[in-house]
């Protein structure tokens, strides 16, 4: 029977190549994705380990570095690095103001950076910038940027563009920054901060000296003034004594009276002068004493101030092997809090944003590496079964002859299994190669995405072996099932022509085909005689329709969110945040800037809103009645006016509270009637009038909105950074870009799913069309012999594809709607509701896309007919 193997392979080479390609796809997906996952996981973990990401991080108020010893006293702790961090601004080369979080480092810490580029700073003061931040803002190593590290902007040399594991997750905090895209990390040597301290110290010392000099001058001036007053007093006292002496020596009454009068006046004057002198002296001395005291206090404060090299506000902790990190972290926190050091936050590596980012990005690959191969292997099972069944069907005569010659059913079955085994081997080889390329592609994508300094490609040998085994098993199972028919092939088939197919067609088929041309009837009956194949193809194409439609649903939903937020609600170009409400004078100054228009206050409150027993944290904005820059719409897309009293509550929040229009909610104990319900699917905000906002008291953040063009943004930043209360600005176009960037990764996934759906559809339609063609090869060749053109046959055969298309759309579209709605519901979070926003055009696009690939598949399948040998095909084989 071994001699039969290669003749069978030779005869059905094209069919077997199709089987090989489909099987190779499954093998490649499995090996490629699983290897990509293993490589990525390994590379990320190595990155975290090699670059010394700490086991835990504790953030505190500014405290002394001495406290490190309290932490290293624990047996579980092997090392603690302390550093300072702060939020500030960088002015880029183009003059834009960018938010930055900087971290200090010093050589003792053995801080490991990966340098993407580096330049020798010489003696210049230098910093490092994080890779993505530098790339987004066009900064390279060797540039000089203006950075406000402490009090003032100074020029610093960018000595390196770096990354380290914590830069995998660069994100602004909730409290300090908004969604401004211009945010990133910088790393500054501690010595730089110390330098800032020294400069500050010098400046303060100079200031104190200046004050002292002024105080001394004041004292001297005061002494001089008092001395003058004293001289005058002494003069008057002397005069009084003289007059008194004169009185004693005068016996003339008139003279005595005159003298007494003068003496009385002088006495009053002297008393007044004395009083004044004493009062002035006390006042001046007291005031000068106070000033001197203040100066002394300031001097003491200056003397007691600590340089930055003894301060820190973040502890990076490294535990010993085997330590229970979570519980040890709690102990460390308790020690700090016991010493009245306020712990602001803490986390272990397992709970860190870095780990979360790693997991979030690994999860889809892991999921895909499990589910996609499963789907492919199911398809392989069915496709191999279809094709092997066809080969066996076409070999009926040969099988009958072998049976007649005495070969057993088992040996014949094993021959076909052997054929499939050879095909599987080639599939595995091809699949491994393609899988390797897939792994490299995914690896390269993620290397650039994170970015990762090193990516170690590790081919997952276990998965390779598993995929090879699965490829062989699925092939053998399908072949064994398809060889089931061999048991029913009798040796007598060698002698006789196969019995013609039954003439009777089901009544439904007769009805459908009544009135159609004979060619059309032939095409339809061929399709319907193989119900199983037809149903399978319809199911697969329906799945393809579903995937395309639901992926489009995500894309349109995302577009809807962006439209709702950025076209309807936010009509301003910039929102500026302050620590507290800006003064009217400042608003006027802002208004007077020629490059800024339509300035409005938009006080920003963060408060709990309660209704009955329910309470929810919410954001509230107060709007002027003449404010056109904020649009608030209801569910019917009607623009809402903000009422003078009451609150416009966002409908999802209202639902969560169990409240409705007309109900009264409480905010900080004060009552507000729900005047309207707005509809916002992203970043939900409640609205009150500025009048009503007075009830809310001081805003959480002061905020102002305005219109400004892009070219003037940096001028605005320059103006704003001079205001001590200024926090940050959110430019609408940048936050739109930032949101769009997030959505883009999901868009990519959606389009990958659409691509995958098209591939499935193409494979299924081509395979079923080719199978149907091959089954009727003889009849179709007869028609060609009788003079039917290739195009005529192709057109009539296309009827089968039309049936597939119609049924698939009828099943796939409603399913797609259900899947889309379910998936969007599951994806939605409190801050972002994905709405089913597919319109007529998405339905049309889906239908047309499916129709397009069905047409393409049909033509590919029909093309194979051109290569048939008419003479051989119409012969009665004997």
């Amino acid at each position, binding site marked *: 029977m071994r001699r039969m193997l290669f003749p069978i392979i030779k005869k059905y080479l094209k069919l077997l190549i199709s089987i090989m390609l489909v099987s190779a796809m499954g093998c490649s997906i499995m090996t490629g994705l699983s290897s990509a996952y293993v490589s990525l996981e390994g590379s990320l973990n190595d990155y975290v380990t090699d670059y010394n990401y700490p086991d835990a991080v504790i953030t505190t108020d500014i405290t002394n570095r001495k406290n490190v010893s309290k932490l290293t006293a624990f047996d579980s702790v092997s090392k603690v690095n302390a550093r300072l961090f702060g939020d500030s601004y960088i002015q880029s080369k183009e003059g834009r103001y960018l938010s930055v979080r900087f971290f200090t480092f010093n050589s003792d810490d053995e801080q490991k950076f990966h340098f993407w580029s580096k330049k020798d700073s010489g003696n210049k003061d230098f910093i490092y910038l994080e890779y993505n931040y530098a790339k987004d803002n066009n900064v390279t190593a060797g540039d000089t940027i203006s950075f406000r590290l402490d009090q003032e902007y100074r020029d610093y040399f960018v000595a390196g563009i770096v990354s380290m594991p914590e830069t995998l997750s660069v994100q602004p905090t909730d409290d300090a920054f908004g969604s401004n895209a211009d945010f990133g990390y910088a790393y500054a040597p501690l010595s730089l901060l110390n330098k800032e301290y020294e400069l500050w110290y010098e400046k303060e010392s100079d200031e104190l000296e200046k004050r002292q000099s002024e105080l001394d001058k004041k004292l001297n001036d005061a002494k001089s003034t008092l001395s003058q007053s004293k001289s005058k007093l002494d003069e008057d006292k002397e005069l009084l004594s003289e007059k008194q002496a004169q009185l004693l020596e005068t016996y003339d009454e008139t003279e005595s009276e005159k003298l007494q009068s003068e003496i009385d006046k002088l006495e009053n004057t002297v008393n007044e002068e004395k009083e004044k002198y004493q009062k002035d002296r006390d006042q001046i001395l007291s005031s000068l004493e106070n000033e001197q005291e203040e100066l002394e206090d300031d001097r003491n404060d200056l003397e007691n101030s600590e340089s930055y090299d003894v301060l820190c506000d973040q502890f990076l902790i490294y535990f010993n092997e085997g330590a229970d990190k979570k519980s040890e972290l709690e102990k460390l926190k308790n020690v700090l809090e016991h010493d009245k050091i306020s712990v602001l936050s803490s986390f272990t590596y397992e709970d860190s944003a870095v780990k979360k980012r790693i997991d979030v990005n690994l999860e889809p690959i892991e999921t895909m590496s499990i589910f996609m191969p499963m789907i492919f292997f199911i398809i392989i099972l069915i496709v191999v079964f279809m094709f092997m069944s066809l080969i066996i069907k076409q070999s009926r005569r040969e099988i009958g002859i072998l049976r007649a010659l005495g070969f057993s059913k088992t040996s014949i079955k094993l021959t076909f299994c052997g054929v499939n085994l050879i095909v599987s081997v080639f599939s595995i080889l091809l699949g491994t190669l393609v899988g390797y390329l897939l792994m490299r592609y995914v690896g390269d994508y993620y290397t650039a995405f994170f970015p990762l300094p090193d990516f170690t490609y590790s081919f997952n040998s276990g998965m390779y072996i598993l995929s090879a085994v699965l490829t062989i098993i699925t092939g053998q199972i399908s072949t064994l099932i398809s060889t089931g028919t061999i048991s029913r092939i009798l040796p007598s088939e060698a002698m006789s022509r196969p019995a013609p197919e*039954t*003439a009777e067609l089901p009544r439904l088929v007769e009805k459908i085909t009544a009135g159609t041309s*004979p060619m059309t009837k032939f095409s339809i009956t061929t399709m319907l*005689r193989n119900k199983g194949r037809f149903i399978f193809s319809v199911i697969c194409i329906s799945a393809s329709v579903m995937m395309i439609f639901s992926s489009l649903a995500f894309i349109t939903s995302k577009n809807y969110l962006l439209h709702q937020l950025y076209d309807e609600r936010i009509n301003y170009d910039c929102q500026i945040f302050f620590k507290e409400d800006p003064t009217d004078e400042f608003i006027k100054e802002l208004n007077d800037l020629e490059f800024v228009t339509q300035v409005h206050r938009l006080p920003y409150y963060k408060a709990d809103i309660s209704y009955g027993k329910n309470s929810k944290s919410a954001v509230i904005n107060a709007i002027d009645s003449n404010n056109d820059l904020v649009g608030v719409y209801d569910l019917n897309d009607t623009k809402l006016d903000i009422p003078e009293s009451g609150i416009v509550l966002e409908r999802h929040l209202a639902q969560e509270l169990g409240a409705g229009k007309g109900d009264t909610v409480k905010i900080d104990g004060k009552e507000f009637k729900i005047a309207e319900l707005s509809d916002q699917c992203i970043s939900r905000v409640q609205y009150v009038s500025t009048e009503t906002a007075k009830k809310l008291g001081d805003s959480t953040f002061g905020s102002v909105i305005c219109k400004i063009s892009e070219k003037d943004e940096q001028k605005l930043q320059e103006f704003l950074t001079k205001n001590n209360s200024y926090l940050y600005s959110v430019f609408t176009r940048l936050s739109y870009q930032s949101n769009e960037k997030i959505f883009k990764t999901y868009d990519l996934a959606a389009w990958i799913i659409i691509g995958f759906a098209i591939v499935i559809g193409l494979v299924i339609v081509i395979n079923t069309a080719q199978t149907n063609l091959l089954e009727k090869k003889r009849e179709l060749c*007869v028609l060609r012999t009788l*003079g039917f*053109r290739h195009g005529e046959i192709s057109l009539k055969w296309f009827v089968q594809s039309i049936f597939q298309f119609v049924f698939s759309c009828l099943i796939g579209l409603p399913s797609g709607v259900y899947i889309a709605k379910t998936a969007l519901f599951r994806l939605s979070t409190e801050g972002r509701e994905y709405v089913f926003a597919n319109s007529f055009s998405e339905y049309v696009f889906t239908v047309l896309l499916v129709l397009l690939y069905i047409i393409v598949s049909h033509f590919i399948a029909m093309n194979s007919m051109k290569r048939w040998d008419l*003479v051989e095909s119409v012969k009665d084989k004997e």
Partner: protein
Amino acid sequence: MQNEKKVILDAKGLCKSYGKGEARVDALDNISLKIYEGELLTILGSSGSGKSTLLNSLGGMDKPDKGSIIVDGKDLCKMNDRGLTDYRRKNIGFVFQSFNLIAELTAKENVAMTADTGSDPEIVEKVFDMVGLKEKMKNYPSQLSGGQQQRVSIARALAKNPSLLLCDEPTGALDYETGKQILIELEKLVRKHGKTVVVVTHTQEIGKMSDRIIKMRNGKIIKESVNPEPVPAESIEW
């Protein structure tokens, strides 16, 4: 007599071989022949003589390696696939040994399908009349006997009113009686309806009913003879 009749096909120097080297087989070795309008031509030969290859070449199903086949002033050997398809569509009716009817279609539909391709087709009922199967038009091939299927096959070939009917072992799959019926039908087509019919067979006796007989062996024409008095198909015994 042939000289007075119109030549509808003129084949010259046809050569066709299969395989290479020692396995090479010359199926046609410098074959030349003419086919005259309205004649019944029989090509005789044993298995492997090249008769079927010759028929396929004359029918535009296969292209010879060398030579020319002129029909209506056009050389089939120089035509592309489209040209050969059109040639078969307009000029040729085929009758196969194994009938090759479409099982999913009724007899009438099998014939009607081909009739639609002809430029001057016969009415379907008329051709069924010609083959004597009018009452069986709505039957499926599996509901017909072998002889009836072959007659439907002949009707299908006639439906587009071809200038030439090529029959490859038309009685090969039939029993003696049925085969004889088919021969009678073919004879009727020539004698009564003036069709031109070429029959390829290995049965010597069948040649007796023909106007002309061409004998082939090993790819060559070994003998070409005119039959001055063809025997009626009814009288043939084999």
